[in-house]
């Protein structure tokens, strides 16, 4: 055919684009030589947390701040006892941070990049339960030591066994079981509750656990309405009306971050909490930021003995003070949980190194972390569930007040881990439905 005349010429722009693309590709593939082992004196740590999107402000960035603080202190050896030795068994931590945004599949890809291209020795991260579920099998496949610090779903270790995967934060089960216990202690004659939870796995799980626990502990409590507004919806006018119309005595909400703050603002402005007792299982992050708006007496939780709920100890005092000095606000629960994940790793590495008298490999570190009991700013953490891979801690609730001019918690009730968590090997749902009633808290 007569078509050969139209050979096209390159324009400078096209040439430039093409060469940039090629350069970038080459840079990516060659820039991190795949098999150069890290220097023997350093320990490469990959950190994954939300740096963009709605979870960045309340969770991602406080967690990153805590990581920065703790890692510097570990490297400098300035932490109080028992972490006053320098580095991880003498190795300096070198950290890389990745944004958790983008969903499970993308995080799997980024995880592989971290482990295989960046050759990190361990990964600490993941706030979203979906990401944790997606990462766990991959971590196992790659034999990469991985510590989840925040995600809440109990399914991870209830459905599967892992060798290299750990979670140093407690599951969401105890938040809601303890919430039910607390509310019943406060209002023994409770008649009715309503729920306002986000329309995704976290919201469903939280509400179900609460509802089931309530059903077991006081079966005659009436569920008035169960609202599930969309994650990030921002406007809760209709839901607030629905809950108001339901006239329940208690409103349970596992809202977190901006959604929770929005609900507090809108609910308070409309007097939602004048006649109903609000309980916010993740309310702790808003305690200082919204102290003028949170109604007196609102029950708030911090997903464990974190933040204001943390028991006094030299470690906690150091953590609160250093965090406050550096970032200008007190640390909230995501900061605590990140700190305790890194400290858990340090405890395990130090322990493995002591046993071996040398640099431990990841299998030895995993073995050391399994079933470990270690100190954190939040008190003692015991890796006792999930065959030693899942932490349990006590759970704490209290009521908010600003009567003395500054935000405080009163009526604090601490629930030992055994009374709000299932024993090892039992699924949360089964435990709540079958044996919660028999579990004593004393």
């Amino acid at each position, binding site marked *: 055919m007569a078509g050969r005349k139209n050979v096209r010429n390159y324009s400078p722009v096209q040439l430039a684009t093409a060469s940039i693309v090629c350069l970038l590709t080459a840079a990516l593939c060659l820039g991190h030589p795949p098999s150069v082992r890290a220097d023997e004196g350093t320990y490469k740590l990959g950190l994954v947390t939300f740096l963009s999107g709605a979870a960045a402000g309340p969770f991602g960035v406080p967690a990153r701040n805590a990581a920065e603080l703790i890692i510097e202190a570990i490297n400098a050896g300035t932490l109080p006892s028992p972490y006053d030795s320098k580095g991880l068994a003498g190795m300096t931590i070198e950290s890389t941070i990745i944004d958790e945004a983008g969903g499970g599949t993308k995080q799997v890809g980024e995880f592989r990049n971290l482990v295989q291209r960046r050759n990190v020795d361990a990964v600490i991260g993941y706030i979203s339960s979906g990401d944790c579920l997606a990462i766990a099998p991959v971590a196992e496949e790659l034999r990469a030591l991985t510590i989840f610090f925040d995600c809440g779903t109990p399914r991870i270790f209830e459905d599967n066994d892992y060798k290299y995967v750990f979670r140093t934060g407690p599951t969401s089960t105890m938040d809601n079981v303890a919430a039910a216990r607390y509310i019943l202690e406060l209002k023994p004659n409770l008649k009715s509750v309503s729920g306002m939870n986000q329309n995704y796995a976290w919201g469903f799980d939280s509400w179900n656990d609460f509802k089931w626990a309530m059903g077991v502990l006081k079966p005659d409590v009436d569920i008035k309405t169960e609202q599930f507004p969309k994650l*990030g919806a921002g406007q809760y006018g209709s839901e607030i009306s629905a809950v108001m119309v339901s006239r329940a005595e208690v409103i349970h909400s596992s809202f977190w971050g901006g959604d929770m703050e929005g609900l507090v603002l809108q609910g308070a402005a409309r007097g939602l909490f004048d006649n109903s007792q609000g309980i916010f299982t993740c309310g702790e992050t808003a305690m200082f930021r919204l102290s003028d708006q949170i109604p007196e007496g609102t029950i708030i939780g911090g997903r464990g003995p974190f933040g204001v709920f943390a028991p006094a100890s030299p470690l906690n005092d150091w953590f609160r003070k250093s965090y406050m000095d550096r970032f200008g606000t007190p640390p909230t629960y995501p900061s605590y949980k990140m700190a305790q994940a890194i400290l858990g790793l340090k405890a395990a590495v130090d322990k493995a190194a002591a046993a071996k008298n040398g640099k431990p490999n990841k299998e030895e570190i995993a073995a050391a972390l399994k079933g470990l009991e270690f100190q954190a700013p939040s008190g003692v953490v015991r890796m006792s569930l999930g065959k030693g891979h899942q932490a349990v801690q006590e759970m704490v609730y209290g009521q908010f007040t600003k009567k003395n001019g500054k935000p405080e918690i009163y009526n604090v009730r601490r629930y030992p881990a055994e009374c709000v968590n299932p024993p090892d090997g039992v699924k949360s749902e089964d435990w709540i439905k079958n044996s919660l009633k028999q579990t004593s808290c004393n």
Partner: protein
Amino acid sequence: METLLAILIDGLVYASWLFIVAAGLTLVYGVMKILNMAHGSLYAIGAYSAASLVGWYFGSGHPPWGSFALFIGGAVIAGMVTGLIIERGVLRRMYGRDEVVMILVTYGVLLILEDVTKLLWGVDAYFAYQPYGMIGRVRFSDLTFAGYDLTLIAVAGLVGFALWYALNRTRQGKLLRAVIHDREISLAMGINVTRIFIVTFIIGSALGALAGGLTAPALSVAPGIGIEIIILAFAVVVIGGLGSVGGAAIGALLVGICRALAVHTYPQFELFIIYGVMAAVLAVRPQGLFVIARARKI
């Protein structure tokens, strides 16, 4: 009875908010044929501007009522400036491209603006709750509503009326409508389309930012608040008929009332309601409720 009242008021409040967001979007589409995804960012920028202005204002102890003028004006100005930058900096170079390509262009702008707001304001939430409580509460038997929310209904009415008046009763507005109806003819008749585009985009952006500014007092203004809005506003605009301001109002009402109905009766359907309404409306009227007449094709 109480539930009925709640559905009505909740629906209206939600619809008002939706309408203010969607009005700018549909106006921009009507005139420029650009379905502007960056509208969400403008919403966020409006909210951030309002929140930081409110924070500063109350921090320095001025008379509280002045804050309204300040944060609404601030949001609108921030929206106009951003709109001008987007139009002059990006869109102007892309006019004439396919509609879908333009969606992606504005998506690119959205991604950039998301990070720009993050760089400017950080990831921590901003609060501007003071004005929210200032209008007080209104009580209907056991139901209490925030006066601020009810005022929003009036504001939406005002915005709608202003748009209607500007489009139908002013010379500039009639020119705009001519462009909406038939761009080629308008060009041939010597209407300065470039200027009309700039003005339209600035008005559209200002409306987006106004919506953000007005909502800011009820929100925790944090990254990501703009993203959720886009799809919602898109749906309203499509339901109403692209480019029709009246359609956006009806679409917003429809979605608002249906949503309130779902929340009060079958909360499990809330997640689907907007897509359900959209699919249902499009199934019956493939181009939305109010179709802008087009010139004959053959």
